[in-house]
């Protein structure tokens, strides 16, 4: 398996606070990796660094052998790394199909072309196909701001796949989605992504989902990597149980209590 992404001693410092330290990760082509860790552990910071939103205070990131540390987000996207967001980053006043059409237009348009129409029937067809792959084509003509979180997440992820990335980061793809729908959502997602042999790294708080969908798991804690390996092993790891899952357990328990209290 070829390594496509490699980070060396990545570090992100804000003032005196280390948001991330000594991050060394390699990802191979087509791999599916689950990332766990409580809030503030550095998972999103890691994704932000690799995708160019943040420039690491030290360390290197290389993609397919070439350094991408400090490159602009748009360049990294064009190289083949895309991401979805914890809070879906969409175009709220436009419809779902319009959001996707814009994503398609941008990915197909490398040079600024001024007077040629961007959208034609063929492109619209592609957009609908993409939505169908994620099972949200029925929402095509609705404005984003009218839609529930689950649908927004899917649109967000669908748009991230438009550039046909080799490596896709999904930041909490199932957060905000009800417990029963989480599994279905992930199934739709992973199936859609398997067809393009994309490497996927998804951040997740639900251990069941991590177990079900990712053979490999990376656990973050306070900015560093606690464990990295086969999911079953990582989840058995003492430190992981204490610092990560323990807190997950408490979170779920708290949610259960809250649900009981509300009913």
């Amino acid at each position, binding site marked *: 398996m070829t390594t496509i992404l490699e980070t060396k001693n990545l570090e992100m410092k804000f003032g005196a606070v280390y948001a991330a330290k000594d991050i060394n990760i390699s990802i191979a082509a087509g791999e599916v990796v689950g990332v766990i860790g409580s809030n503030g552990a550095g998972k999103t910071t890691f994704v932000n660094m690799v995708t160019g939103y943040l420039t690491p205070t030290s360390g290197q990131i290389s993609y397919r052998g070439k350094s991408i540390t400090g490159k602009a987000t748009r360049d990294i996207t064009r190289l083949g790394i895309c991401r979805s967001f914890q809070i879906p980053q969409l175009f709220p006043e436009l419809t779902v199909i319009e959001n996707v059409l814009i994503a398609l237009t941008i990915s197909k348009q490398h040079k600024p072309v*001024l007077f040629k129409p961007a959208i034609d029937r063929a492109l*619209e067809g592609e957009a609908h196909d993409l939505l169908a792959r994620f099972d949200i084509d029925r929402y095509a003509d609705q404005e984003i701001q009218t839609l529930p979180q689950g649908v927004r997440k899917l649109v967000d992820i669908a748009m991230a796949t438009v550039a046909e990335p080799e490596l896709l980061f999904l930041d909490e793809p199932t957060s905000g989605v009800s417990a029963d729908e989480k599994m279905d959502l992930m199934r739709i997602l992973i199936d859609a992504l398997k067809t393009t042999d994309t490497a996927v790294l998804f951040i997740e708080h639900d251990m069941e989902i991590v177990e079900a969908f990712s053979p490999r798991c990376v656990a973050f804690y306070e900015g560093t990597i606690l464990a990295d390996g086969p999911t079953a092993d990582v989840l058995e790891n003492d430190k992981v149980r204490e610092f990560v899952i323990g807190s997950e357990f408490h979170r779920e328990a708290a949610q259960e209590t809250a649900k009981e209290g509300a009913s």
Partner: protein
Amino acid sequence: MTKTLDRTEIGLLIALPLLILVAFILPKWIVNYVHVSMGTGLVALGVMIQMRAGLVSFGQGLYFCVGGYAAGMMAKFLGVTDFFVLLASGIVAALILSALLGFLLRRYREIFFAMLTLAVSMILFGLLSSTEELGSTDGFNLPTPSYLGWTPEGDTAQFMLYTLTCAIAIGCAIALNRFLKSPIGYVNEAIRENELRVEYLGTSAHQAVHITYVLAAIVSAVGGVLWALPLGHVDPEMTNWTTSGQFVFVSILSGTGNIAAPMIGTFILEIVRVYAVEISPNTWQMILGSVMLLTIIFLPKGLWSLLTRKTRTKKSAGANASVAGE
């Protein structure tokens, strides 16, 4: 380049002969207002295409003035009277200035963009107002233009200028309509909605803004030349921010939905202003301000949205039409 024209472009093309016809049927004073609003309408268009990207230019008068003064200076200092050369000089001046300034302004959004464009336009205002060679606050006059050697006089001259003005204005409008439907046009809408995502989709928001800024500048400069020539005069007021404010007003009122809206809006504004100022000169701005407030509160997408409200939900023409907002 696709050869099919959308509804707006067809409308604009039909409007051209109608406008020329108007010159024969309607009284001179109306034709004058139509003529003048072709020029200022183009500047409003410049404001409008930037507004699509969420950028409000409170200093578009800068290029309105640059166009007029560039042409004027060519005439005044180099004795040029050829219409096409004068027009070209306005375009070139605007192109160079906006290409340069664009590097600074493309980094700003929201309030900063608005106020920096205002500040820049006022720099020119100060410059021109204190330059004696250019008439200071009085400005200076422009000669009657000639056309590739031929200098018509009297009514023919007016008609010639009017026809060319209409043709160029319509041409610009059609070009801008295409621009709005081009990839950059959509990138602009995306920038307005969520610039972060635009970068993540793989394109440079700054570059799109820069290009839009330059295009708007060129169109505004053309407007400046077309406005100054029939008037025969330019002065620094063209770049005063209060003038720019009127272009903003028209854009708000007409909305960003359709290319023709700002031009129609400008014409209506000019006519209404004449009457309002005559009836009660000290309430004209109050009326403008109140209308603007009401539009912002009740019709945030401008008056044009009244016409398109039904078509949007119908979805008859597909996503194409609604994103372009016809």
